[in-house]
């Protein structure tokens, strides 16, 4: 039995470093029936999401019904499997908890309609539903977020990880020196499961040496990548900085665009934007020619290139910002929806393209506004007329 299974907490008091989350899930269970019927436990891997679900089941003397990523979770499957569970009484008159594990693993393609069906089932269920996810903010989960309480589990601090490891070693009657333990704990970056796995590997090797433990390819978040590019000297490692960032290159480009002026000024700024604009040119070429090797160039300009725009490494802390441009464009599109619908009607009527009508809108607006019969001709709605007036 792996140590991660053997020492998986069974009771609330065994769970370390997640006091806030524990309190929240307790009150969710206690007051079930009065509020939202589902709860999403979210946080990085190895912080105890699944464990917490099993513990609450244990502590409330409930059966657990689990569905995880290895099951197909499309609409029909979810309906067929979960529906009876949610409605039927538990055999032993015990309570029941439905656990949908790793919900961000529901594939938009293979598990079509899965998330929507889950939302519908939550409305029907008479038992608590617990959902776990790494990235709760993924847009496909947005309907689910509205129906659920969110509980965040944080990365576990290395002190606590170390305590957990010492506890396990004591029970196993083994010994590993303090400094090795500290290094294992730090290397785990908040992931208890990773730490315990490493610990078991080490203990089985006789002469423990950290060198044998390969660094896990942990997701470098975008903030880290930005730090490496903007602060550090360009090295061949810089070329790979986006490999472990879980984002599309298009999204990364927006992050770079947003944050260059936070770090660079004057000539550096101009050089960095020059390289960004070249990355963008290659992006355009990829789309146009469908020639994906150009990705190499886009990637190099964005990482190494922008890193090389400065003469000396930067120090100090910079708070990087999320790209806001797309949001602003979206908000603006909401605002200009009327302008567009008017332009469309006008364009169709006078045999021009909508784009050209939008382009000449100030002049066209004046014409439309001054003449009621034109408004009728174009069959403008009251709202559209209102828009033209202002």
């Amino acid at each position, binding site marked *: 039995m792996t140590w991660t299974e053997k020492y998986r907490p069974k009771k609330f008091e065994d769970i370390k470093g997640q006091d806030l989350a524990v309190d929240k899930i307790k009150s969710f269970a206690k007051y079930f029936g009065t509020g939202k019927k589902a709860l999403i436990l979210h946080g990085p891997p190895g912080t105890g999401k699944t464990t917490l679900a099993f513990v609450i089941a244990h502590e409330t003397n409930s059966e657990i019904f689990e569905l995880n990523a290895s099951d197909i979770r499309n609409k029909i499957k979810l309906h067929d499997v979960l529906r009876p569970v949610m409605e039927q009484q538990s055999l032993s008159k015990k309570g029941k908890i439905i656990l949908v594990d790793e919900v961000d693993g529901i594939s938009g393609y293979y598990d079509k309609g899965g998330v929507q069906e889950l939302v519908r089932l939550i409305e029907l269920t008479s038992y608590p539903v617990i959902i776990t996810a790494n990235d709760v903010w993924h847009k496909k989960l947005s309907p689910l977020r509205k129906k659920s309480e969110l509980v965040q589990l944080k990365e576990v601090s290395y002190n606590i990880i170390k305590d957990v490891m010492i506890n396990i070693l004591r029970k196993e009657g083994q010994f590993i020196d303090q400094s090795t333990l500290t290094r294992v704990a730090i290397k785990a970056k908040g992931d208890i499961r990773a730490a315990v796995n490493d610990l078991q590997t080490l203990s089985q090797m006789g002469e423990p040496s950290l060198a044998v433990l390969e660094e896990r390819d942990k997701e470098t978040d975008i903030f880290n990548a930005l730090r490496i590019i903007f602060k550090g000297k360009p090295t061949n490692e810089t070329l790979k900085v986006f490999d472990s960032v879980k984002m599309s290159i298009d999204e990364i480009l927006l992050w770079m665009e947003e944050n260059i002026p936070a770090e660079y000024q004057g000539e550096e*700024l101009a050089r960095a934007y020059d390289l960004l604009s070249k990355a963008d040119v290659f992006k355009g070429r990829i789309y146009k020619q469908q020639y994906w090797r150009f990705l190499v160039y886009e990637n190099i300009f964005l990482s190494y290139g922008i890193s090389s725009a400065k003469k000396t490494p930067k120090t100090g802390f910079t708070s990087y910002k999320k790209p806001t441009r797309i949001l602003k464009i979206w908000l603006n599109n909401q605002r200009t929806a009327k302008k567009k619908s008017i332009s469309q009607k006008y364009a169709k009527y006078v045999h021009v393209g909508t784009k050209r009508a939008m382009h000449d809108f100030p002049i066209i607006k004046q014409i439309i506004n*001054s003449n009621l019969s034109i408004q009728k001709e174009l069959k403008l709605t009251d709202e559209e007329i209102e828009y033209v007036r202002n």
Partner: protein
Amino acid sequence: MVSEIWTEKYRPSKFNELVGQDNIIKRVEALTASMNIPHLLFAGPAGTGKSTLALIVVKELFKNNWRDNYLELNASDERGINVVREKVKNFARTKALGNVPFKVIFLDEADALTPEAQQALRRTMENYSATCRFVLSCNYSSKIIDPIQSRCAMFRFKLLEKKDIERIIRRISETENLTIPLESIEILYEGSEGDCRRCINILQSTASVSPSITPELISTIISSAKPKDIKVVLDYAIAGDFQRAREKLLDVMLKESISGQDVIKAVQKEIWNLPIEPEIKVKLTEKTGEAEFRIVEGSDPFIQLQALLASFVLAGLGK
């Protein structure tokens, strides 16, 4: 019903009413009279009569049935070639009404289609050639792939001259009871850059304020439609405040929905009013040209403009 929108109200409906494209008109009229037209390609600047001529052709061919036998699509609005194909298919499936054996599809701004989409269009043109004639319009014929060009009879429209524009304005002014001095016509012509549609729109917009079309009034109307704040954006950049410059830029582009190409045009003109060395003006112009080229080629306008702004920051430092 006669439209109150002047570009429609005064749109020529017969060959001999069209102004400024005499050579083209003669040839197209002859083709139309034979009741069998080839595919046509109309190339030329905006507002020179391409759509109008297409409409005249179908009205001549089909007389009162023209609406049933004519489909107008705008390539810059229809999102993909699939939409075009779908609509073409549905339209071409039924036989033409009347005694002409084909229908006519007018594909406006065909140069907005990507080369791949044009390849697909070429097949579509072939597949339906028995039942459909295509009339394509574009600003630049070089953006139309050769195989399509070779299947069409090509006509190049030229910009309207001042005398053409004047004739049109005079005609409208008489009917609409406008008083319009010669200088006003001058300004209208310059403001419209040979684009007849734009010229008539400016005229109607001005007339909606007052029937007395003074040069000042026209200028006000024209400048109200121009991106004003580009100067502010550049001022921030030259002063070294890049963050505010780009904020303002995005603001201008979104709120007034000005395209990247229009911004670049304004930037290019504004360079000459900036307090910087001649040598740097030339350098900036070169950068501006490169940015415009990239935007035309399909790069992200906002990113290219930001890069350009960063060189304006440098210019502000004398570099």
